[in-house]
C-alpha cells in the first residue's frame, strides 16, 4: 500500500510515471515541490489572463466599428474564461481561490509583465493580439502536454480559443499597415512599443532561469525560454515583412547556416524593473483589480443570501 512506502520510494514511482508520460491527477501522490511549483505557475498564469483583460478592455468602447467591437469583446471575454479554467486547475491542487487572488492584490504573486504596458492607440489592439497572444500561444501549446492532467486539459481549451485572438490582432495590423500613412505609422509605432516586451514574455535567458531544469524533469515545461523565444522570432518576422512593417531591432539578421534569425540584446534591466513593480502600469492594474473585488463584494454576498433564501423556501 502506498501509505506504507517511504518518501524516496514514492518519489521514485512518481518520477517513473512522469517518465512514462502518465498524467498526474489531483488525488495522486505528488512531491510537495511539484505541487507548489504548479500552484505558483498556474495561479500566475491565471492572474495574467485576468489582468490581461485590462489593456484591451481600455479600447472596447472606442473600437472603430461594430465588427471590431464585437470581436474585441469576444476576445476579452475568452480571457476571463481562461482565467477561470486556470484558477479551477489551481484549486485542484488545494490552492484556496480567494487567497490566490489576494496574493495577486498584495503583490506576492506575479503576472506576465507585458500587461504593465499602456495601450495608447487602437493599433495596440492589433499588436497585442498578434504579438502578445502569439507569444502566449507559443508558450501554451507545449503546456497541453504538461504532466499535470487538469492543467494540460485547461490548456487544450485555452489553445483552441487562442487561435482567433492572434488572427484578429494580425488582421487589425495588416489593415492599418495598408491604410493611410498615418494609419501605417500608428501600426509601426505599436509594433515598436510591443516588440521587445513581447520577447521578454518568454522569461529570462536559460542561464538565468533557475526553475527550468526541474520543471523540464517533471514535464511541466517542455521547452526552455530561449527555445520558445527563438521559435517566436522565427515565425513572426516574415509576418511583419509580409505586411510591410519593420521590426525595431537594428541587430536583426537571418543566419543562412542555422536557418534562424539572430536578434539584438534584450533590455533585462527593463524586464526586472517591470517585474519588481515599477512598470508604467503596475500600480494601476493592481488598483483596478482590487477595486473590482471590493466593489463586487456586496453582489457576491447578496447572491449567497438569495441562494440561501431560495433553498429555505424550497425545503419549507
Amino acid at each position, binding site marked *: 500500500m502506498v501509505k506504507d512506502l517511504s518518501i524516496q520510494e514514492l518519489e521514485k514511482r512518481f518520477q517513473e510515471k512522469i517518465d512514462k508520460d502518465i498524467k498526474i491527477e489531483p488525488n495522486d501522490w505528488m512531491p510537495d515541490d511539484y505541487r507548489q511549483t504548479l500552484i505558483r505557475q498556474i495561479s500566475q498564469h491565471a492572474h495574467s489572463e485576468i489582468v490581461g483583460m485590462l489593456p484591451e478592455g481600455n479600447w472596447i468602447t472606442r473600437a472603430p466599428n461594430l465588427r471590431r467591437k464585437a470581436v474585441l469583446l469576444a476576445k476579452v471575454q475568452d480571457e476571463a474564461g481562461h482565467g*477561470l479554467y486556470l484558477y479551477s486547475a489551481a484549486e485542484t491542487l488545494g490552492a484556496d481561490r*480567494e487567497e490566490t487572488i489576494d496574493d495577486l492584490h498584495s503583490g506576492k504573486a506575479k503576472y506576465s509583465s507585458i500587461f504593465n504596458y499602456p495601450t495608447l492607440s487602437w493599433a495596440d489592439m492589433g499588436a497585442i493580439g498578434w504579438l502578445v497572444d502569439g507569444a502566449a500561444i507559443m508558450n501554451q501549446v507545449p503546456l497541453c502536454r504538461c504532466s499535470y492532467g487538469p492543467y494540460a486539459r485547461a490548456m487544450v481549451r485555452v489553445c483552441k480559443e487562442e487561435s482567433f485572438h492572434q488572427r484578429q490582432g494580425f488582421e487589425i495590423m495588416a489593415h492599418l499597415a495598408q491604410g493611410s500613412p498615418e494609419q501605417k505609422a500608428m501600426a509601426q509605432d505599436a509594433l515598436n512599443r510591443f516588440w521587445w516586451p513581447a520577447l521578454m514574455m518568454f522569461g529570462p535567458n536559460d542561464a538565468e532561469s533557475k526553475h527550468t531544469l526541474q520543471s523540464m524533469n517533471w514535464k511541466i515545461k517542455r521547452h526552455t525560454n530561449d527555445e520558445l523565444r527563438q521559435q517566436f522570432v522565427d515565425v513572426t518576422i516574415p509576418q511583419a515583412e509580409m505586411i510591410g512593417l519593420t521590426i525595431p531591432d537594428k541587430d536583426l539578421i537571418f543566419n543562412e547556416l542555422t536557418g534562424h534569425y539572430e536578434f539584438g540584446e534584450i533590455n533585462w534591466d527593463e524586464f526586472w524593473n517591470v517585474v519588481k513593480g515599477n512598470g508604467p502600469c503596475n500600480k494601476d492594474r493592481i488598483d483596478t483589480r482590487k477595486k473590482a473585488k471590493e466593489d463586487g463584494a456586496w453582489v457576491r454576498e447578496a447572491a*449567497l443570501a438569495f441562494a440561501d433564501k431560495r433553498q429555505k423556501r424550497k425545503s419549507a
Partner: protein
Amino acid sequence: MSKKEWPLWEVFIRSKAGLNHKHVGSLRAADAEMAIDNARDVYTRRSEGISIWVVPSNQITASDPTEADALFEPANSKIYRHPTFYDVPDGISHM
C-alpha cells in the same frame, strides 16, 4: 467582508444528442441555477453543448487512487470476458 466563498461545482456537458454528458471542468456559483448560467457562459461559448449538468463538487465520491491496483485487479485476470479469448474456426462468419 465575509470570508464565505461561493461553492464549487463540477460541470458536465452533453456535446450533442446521443452522447454522454462529459466532465469539462469546474466553477464557482452561489447556487445550482447560477452554476448552469455560468457554465453556459464559460464552457459553451462555441456551441460545445446542448445540455449541462452541474454537481456540487463536495457531493462527488471518488475511488482512492492508492487503492487502484486492488480495485481494478479482478478485471485483469478475466481475459475470457473479451471476444479475442475464443478461437473461431476459419469459415465461420457473422460471429
